[in-house]
């Protein structure tokens, strides 16, 4: 149990009028102290639901955790009540949301929004909190922090707002920060700055980061390890080099093929992954990627592949890695190009 966070076979479903949507269908991964885990996948694959489950913020009563455990510092968060969750949120786990334009309260001074979390979780006085907030604003790179303190969110640009959101997440020095697509809504240059900031803060404070993204470029920049999610399951996970150099799942190959590479001089075309993810309203019984996979075998349609372990960190769920699979090296090689 040396992992800071360990998610084990997590299953979450949403009940809507037309039936049950199985958003997470057995998600397992872990985050070690001081490292950055990137959770990657297309929209709708369950990345954000995973974050919500960890924070205890799955919309009720439609959504609920059906099975599995979320161990944070050895405690199972799925067993937590509201009060226990409140003691974890903000103080031990901080969260950065996707859209900085809407994740700050428009009618509250920016400073007060940071103060609040300090007063709540560290029992600081208003004055001490203000002091610390101004330090935090400086820390996340907001110049003129003391006058910025009493401004409102609409007086901040998107990138600046995201810095404020990061300051809120950081305020109580949490051990884990969950960043849900923190750069998606931002301009490219601002994206780089925000990622740089996250990296810097992590180094200084030895915080663990669970970075949710659909952008492999972001992953390459900041992550130590990667978990690739597809249709409510983790299909491949491993160290960032392992995933980029030696991916074992056709979906990862697809993702890597669809990333533009700046260094390649060739007029390399981006290869999109054909098709769309399965409907989690009625997930397929076999591998969820089978329908879009260029190498589908009959077994893929019938049975969910188990975990194949390649190294201490690297594992994937794909029948192609089964010894019984045809050693169709050429096909695989062709697919990876």
């Amino acid at each position, binding site marked *: 149990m040396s992992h800071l966070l360990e998610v084990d076979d997590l299953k979450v479903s949403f009940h809507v009028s037309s039936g049950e949507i199985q958003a997470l269908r057995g998600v397992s991964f872990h985050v070690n102290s001081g490292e950055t885990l990137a959770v990657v996948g297309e929209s709708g694959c369950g990345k954000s639901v995973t974050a919500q489950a960890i924070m205890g913020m799955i919309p009720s009563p439609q959504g609920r955790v059906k099975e599995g455990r979320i161990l944070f510092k050895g405690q199972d968060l799925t067993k937590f009540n509201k009060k226990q969750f409140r003691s974890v949120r903000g103080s031990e786990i901080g969260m950065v949301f996707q859209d900085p334009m809407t994740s700050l309260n428009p009618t509250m001074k920016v400073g007060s929004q940071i103060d609040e979390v300090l007063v709540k979780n560290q029992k600081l006085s208003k004055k001490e909190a203000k002091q610390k907030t101004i330090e935090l604003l400086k820390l996340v790179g907001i110049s003129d922090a003391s006058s910025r303190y009493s401004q409102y969110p*609409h007086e901040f640009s998107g990138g600046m707002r995201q810095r404020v959101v990061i300051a809120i997440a950081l305020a109580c020095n949490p051990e884990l920060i969950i960043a849900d697509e923190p750069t998606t809504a931002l301009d490219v240059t601002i994206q780089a700055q925000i990622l740089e900031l996250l990296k810097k803060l992590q180094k200084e404070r030895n915080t663990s980061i669970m970075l949710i993204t659909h952008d492999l470029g972001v992953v390459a920049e900041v992550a130590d390890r990667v978990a690739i999610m597809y249709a409510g399951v983790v299909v491949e996970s491993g160290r960032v080099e392992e995933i980029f150099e030696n991916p074992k799942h056709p979906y990862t190959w697809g993702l890597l093929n669809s990333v533009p590479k700046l260094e390649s001089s060739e007029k390399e075309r981006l290869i999109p992954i054909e098709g769309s993810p399965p409907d989690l309203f009625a997930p397929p019984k076999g591998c969820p990627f089978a329908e879009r996979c260029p190498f589908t075998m009959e077994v893929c349609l019938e049975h969910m592949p188990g975990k194949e372990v390649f190294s201490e960190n690297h594992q994937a769920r794909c029948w192609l890695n089964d010894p019984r699979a045809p050693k169709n090296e050429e096909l695989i090689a062709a697919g990876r190009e």
Partner: protein
Amino acid sequence: MSYLIKRLFTMFVTLWIIVTLTFVIMHMIPGDPFATDAKSLPEEIVQNMREKYNLDKPLPTQYFLYLKDLVQLDLGPSIQSKSRDVNSLIADGFGLSALLGIQSLLIAIVVGIGLGVIAALNHNRLLDYVSMFIAIIGISVPSFILAPLLIKYFAVEWGLLPVAAWGTWSHSILPTIALAVSPIAIITRFVRASMIEILNQNFIKTAEAKGLHTWEIVIKHGLRNALIPVISFIGPLFAAVITGTFVIEKIFAIPGIGKYFVDSIFNRDYPVILGTTIFYSAILIITLFFIDLLYRVIDPRIKIASGGDS
């Protein structure tokens, strides 16, 4: 500051338009204020009366004379109650009407916000349905149906409260309730809808992720934002309460402005109709003005756009 001046200017222009329109309408009304008395009064006296009230002069002259008096806040004499002028009628009735109106508005705001928030927090659960049921009943039953029922049961059958007329504060309880019910319902519905929307916003998730208690989130982050759209509803609500007093004062025989207004219509007492209409409009316009200021206080985003939205 320039915004304030602009806004004040608009206020006066609006009021002037209302005065003019009402004046014109008033003088297009068929029927003569002396018609009822005409049989008993000799022709000369009627003529004298018409002179006294400037009714013999051409309309534009009457209009300017009226405006001149109005600027001095003189609403002119009443035709029906010959000894009194409109100012003193309004002064007499205002206290009662204002007490009723303010009492019921305050109750409506407190109860309405409370019910609305409870409903929103329990969206699609029992308490939501209960609050909405109360609200829908409040909107469905008109005050002029509710008021007689209140009198019948609370005053006559159970003898808990005085029947009607005016005396002690307890006389104001039943009319206040009758007047507050529909505003309560309106506020409840608006607060509920607004609150549900706000509670789905991202910044509520941020607040939740801070580890705040539900009630802290509701009060500090939810309510203020949810009330912004509701504020714009206080104006019409205020107007609804004013008009509500017409029937309530009639049913409960309360000598407020509403009663004078309704009586003046039947008596064709032009100066009173005109005076009360202007008075009501002025109050409403001033209220709207303060609501506008309140908006600016409560919503920091408006300051930036202060030039644009006026």
